[in-house]
């Protein structure tokens, strides 16, 4: 019986880990479809190698930093209880590795390859686990302090802030330090549009992410008896809200519509375990609007060349979701309660500050030392030829 219990938990978390692993393919294809054809191969290689480097960083450093657990004992110890601790690591790794995958979309089409791998290493080994450990493992007593002071801990069920917010705000620094793509903004202030090289690939990315997200959110319960159908339906409703929001505010643009569900899902992570489905629907709708509005602002008004709009998508929708948990999670909005808007705001702001500093420091140092940007000629030829010596497609 006990074995069924522990086996079921391992199975449960394994499926979650596998689903979030698949989301990394989703990140890759969202980028493949959005960038110009000459940068497609680079998008693919970046995501898969970033995942590998993140695994090394998290296995050897990050995970023990966050959770005080390491793997340097014999396999027979690790294998106890069906190896539950191991799949838990796998599951949480797929979250950690999402950070470089998020950043990747912002710095696309002009970033050097190896410096980005190095950045990924430090971010996943140190910066992300610092915030993760504080929020999810109670490190440094911050959560206790918040609970004591405000009555409630900072609530981020599946990582609106811990994962997406941190990723999006780290990307912000990287994008600023990199500068915009050549030719994107002309001297006389005009904006050149780079339409997506392939809407179908972009859509494959979007669907893969959206489907995998149900693992990301629901399996965050981390044991099968704690699973909550509420998380599932709230994810669904926020996703749908995001689609509809992007359809309406994004004027039927496929680029917006396929990011809409992601905006909704980013936003619902934090409060999916405590909101009412109607609250989740509204959270998603607003997230759809936030993404569309701020994407246009950054790209076309403020001329910040965040290629996939990851700051708007993960950074801003992540913050919005963190706050939304403090609104629609409240009992007066038919939520389960146990959250405080003020604490959510504190959590979001701390995350922003940490990620901004982290991003500017890591990418700043790399910029000063190895450089983070392709040469003009390399950028013009495309990252595929200049880094990988091959084109995305061939008709030979």
């Amino acid at each position, binding site marked *: 019986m006990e074995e069924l219990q522990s086996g079921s938990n391992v199975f449960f978390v394994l499926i979650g880990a596998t689903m979030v692993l698949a989301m990394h393919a989703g990140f890759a294809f969202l980028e493949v479809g959005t960038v110009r054809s000459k940068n497609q191969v680079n998008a693919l290689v970046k995501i898969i190698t970033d995942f590998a480097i993140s695994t090394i960083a998290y296995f050897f450093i990050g995970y023990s930093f966050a959770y005080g657990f390491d793997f340097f004992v014999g396999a027979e110890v690790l294998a106890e209880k069906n190896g539950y601790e191991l799949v838990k690591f796998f599951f949480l790794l797929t979250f950690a590795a999402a950070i470089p995958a998020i950043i990747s979309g912002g710095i696309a089409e002009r970033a050097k390859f190896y410096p980005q791998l190095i950045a990924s290493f430090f971010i996943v080994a140190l910066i992300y686990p610092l915030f993760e450990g504080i929020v999810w493992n109670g490190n440094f007593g911050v959560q206790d302090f918040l609970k004591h002071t405000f009555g409630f801990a900072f609530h981020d069920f599946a990582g609106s802030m811990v994962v997406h917010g941190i990723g999006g705000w780290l990307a912000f620094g990287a994008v600023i330090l990199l500068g915009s793509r050549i030719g994107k903004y002309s001297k006389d202030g005009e904006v050149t549009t780079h*339409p997506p090289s392939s809407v179908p690939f972009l859509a494959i990315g979007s669907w893969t992410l959206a489907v995998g997200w149900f693992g990301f959110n629901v399996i965050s319960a981390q044991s099968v008896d704690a699973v909550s159908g509420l998380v599932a339906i709230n994810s669904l409703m926020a996703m749908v809200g995001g689609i509809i929001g992007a359809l309406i505010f994004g004027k039927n*643009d496929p*680029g*917006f519509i396929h990011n809409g569900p992601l905006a909704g899902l980013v936003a619902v992570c934090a409060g999916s375990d405590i909101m009412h489905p109607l609250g989740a629907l509204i959270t998603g709708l607003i997230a759809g609007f936030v993404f569309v509005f701020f994407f*246009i602002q950054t*790209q*076309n008004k403020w001329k910040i060349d965040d290629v996939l709009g990851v700051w708007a998508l993960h950074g801003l929708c992540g913050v919005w979701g963190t706050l939304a948990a403090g609104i629609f999670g409240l009992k007066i909005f038919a939520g389960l309660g146990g959250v405080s808007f003020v604490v959510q705001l504190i959590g979001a702001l701390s995350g922003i500050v940490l990620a901004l500093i982290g991003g500017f420091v890591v990418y700043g140092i790399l910029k000063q030392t190895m450089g983070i940007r392709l040469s003009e000629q390399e950028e013009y030829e495309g990252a595929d030829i200049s880094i990988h010596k091959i084109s995305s497609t061939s008709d030979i």
Partner: protein
Amino acid sequence: MKRVIAIIKPHKLEEVRESLMEIGISGMTVSDVKGFGIQKGHTETYRGAEYKIDFLPKIKLEIVVKAKILNDCLDVIIKVAKTGNIGDGKIFIDNIEKVIRIRTGEENELAL
């Protein structure tokens, strides 16, 4: 020999080819080109930013013919490729000094 270069609307290709075969033209070379002219392109939008697509897809036909059937050839193209709308295209005629059939080495009219 004369060369007829016709820029036409893509969906007219099939019909033009068939009609040309009827008057005894046995070969032609076709390419996908983009045309710019009085006919305007269209505006696309991506994530809130508009951009103009100025060039429209056209088909370029190249047909080398004996001078004596040049006029028949022109008549056919004009008749079939015409829709009456802007952008129907143009025909350019120039002179070809020599034609060789690679397979046989035959030259000029024999090579057509």
